[in-house]
């Protein structure tokens, strides 16, 4: 259980991807359906409104279709491209809206948030609520950027290099961001701070 848990796509997807590269419209529809909810969820998590996110997704797929479908090296690459394009698109939409309402453009234009859902499987409702609260408690300790990095890394399973590009920082920066998150969740950061304070005040 290391940090490198890139998703391996099944045979069906790989065959479809070969067709996709050839420009097959069936394969195009297949990957549209395959990725649309990942994109939708990411867009909503960035604070986009439902309608805007849905339209943005259509635009991105349209663009992929009219540009060269051949340029993608792998399914992972396609997914990364879709997520990144969606974020850029939303960023452009929201920043241009902010300009028109004369409020300042901030990085927080697309602040990432994570909400937890515990599905109704075999866990009873009472326990579900507690589990959800516990997870939310952990997540509230993180900054928006840390949340986004973790989401992209462990939920969407992107590579560090890809996350770096989406977050507009270095790979090293992403690794640091994630290791900081771990420290925060462990409460180590606070302990270190107390230690330093004690050390220097004595």
């Amino acid at each position, binding site marked *: *259980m290391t940090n490198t848990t890139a998703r391996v796509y099944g045979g069906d997807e790989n065959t479809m991807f070969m067709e996709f590269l050839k420009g097959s419209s069936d394969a195009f*529809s297949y990957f*549209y359906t395959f990725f649309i*909810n990942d994109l939708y969820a990411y867009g*909503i998590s960035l604070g986009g409104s439902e309608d805007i996110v849905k339209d943005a997704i259509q635009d991105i797929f349209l663009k992929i279709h009219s540009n060269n479908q051949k340029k993608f090296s792998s399914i992972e690459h396609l997914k990364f491209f879709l997520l990144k394009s969606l974020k850029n698109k939303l960023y452009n939409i929201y920043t241009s809206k902010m300009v028109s309402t004369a409020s300042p453009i901030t990085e927080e234009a697309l602040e990432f948030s994570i909400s937890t859902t515990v*599905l109704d499987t075999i*866990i009873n409702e009472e326990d579900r609520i507690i589990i959800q609260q*516990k997870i939310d408690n952990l997540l509230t300790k993180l900054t928006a950027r840390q949340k986004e990095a*973790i989401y992209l890394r462990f939920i969407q399973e992107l590579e560090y290099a890809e996350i770096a590009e989406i977050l507009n920082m270095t790979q090293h920066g992403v690794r640091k961001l994630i290791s900081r998150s771990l420290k925060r969740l462990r409460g180590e950061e606070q302990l270190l701070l107390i230690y330093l304070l004690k050390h220097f005040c004595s």
Partner: protein
Amino acid sequence: MRDNQFRGYTVIDLLKDEDFLRWQLLKSEEDALFWKNVINRHPDLAPIIEEAISLYKTSVRFNNFSMTPAEISERREQLQYVIGQKKKKNARYVMLRAIAVAACIMVAILPFLWKKSEDVQQKDITTFAQALPEVDFNDTDTRLVLGEDQVVTLHNTESSVQYGVDDIVADDNIILQKEVTTSYNQLITPHGKRSTIIFSDGTKAWVNAGTKLVYPNQFSKENREIYVNGEIYIEVVEDKNRPFIVKTKRMDISVLGTKFNVSAYEVDHINNVALLSGSVSIASAIHKKDVVLKPNQLYSNTEGTPSIKTVDASMYALWTQGLYRFESEALGDIIKRLERYYGVKITCDDQAAHLKCSGKLDLKDNLDILLTDLTRALPINYLKNADGDYTIY
């Protein structure tokens, strides 16, 4: 170690445990190691932990936003429809564009089709060159004018300009040519300076002092045309499909591949063409038929009167090597050349100007030495004035 507390934990207990959740959330190696140790100490917990992991995977969702399958398929169909429309539109667009291009070509070639019988080549470069404002050849620097507004100043006494595939090297400057559209460039070599230019086809021209050369930044597919006011010695690279045409105010010289010297200063009384090798054809308003020159023939246009005589043509290109040979030439004409070459003003009294002389001058010499030599060979004297001008009497 607090792993003792996990004794008797159920799957749900684990799912409520912060350490377990953090492990699932961040999948760090430290946490993985911690739980491996827990399993080592309490092997009975192994299946429970495993089940907790799988339950976490199936039950916990982050940002669980999704569109309904019905909406997804509806949107997918919408997208396919838009793509289909776009394809149709593109096909229509390509057609329209083809028609538009064809129309443009027609409009562009119509005047040529119309006036085919007239001298088509008399158009463009000559018109362009003669519409240019007068140049002050007393400037100190050679200037390379690119298109309409880009001027490159060259400080060397002998500058070199070379046209590459997409760049121009002018002395130490490298200029990238961004424009693909045809425009005219100018190389203006003032008095006292010389330059060489190599065109993109490899043709090389030596440009004498006080010369303006006009040429397109790219030769067309049909011909290679340049316009000269002044003197050049040119070695044309042969291209059977594209004749090279040197245009001047009083004559046009068409060649395929040759070496010849053109002296066509618009201010001069005599313009001439000296052919070193190959063949050239000269068109001029002063004769109906084109004149075809053979090697070592000199074509002259003396105030509107054409003449051809046999000469040692290489003499006429000696200036490119800094030498000047002349045979029974009027001193006045020689002085004019020296004025240009050295970029100074020499006034010559009328009587002296009509003296005919032959000889050779080394133009690499200082002008004072050169004039002293002349005073020895001819019954003349010279004065150097305070302002640097010379007077011959």
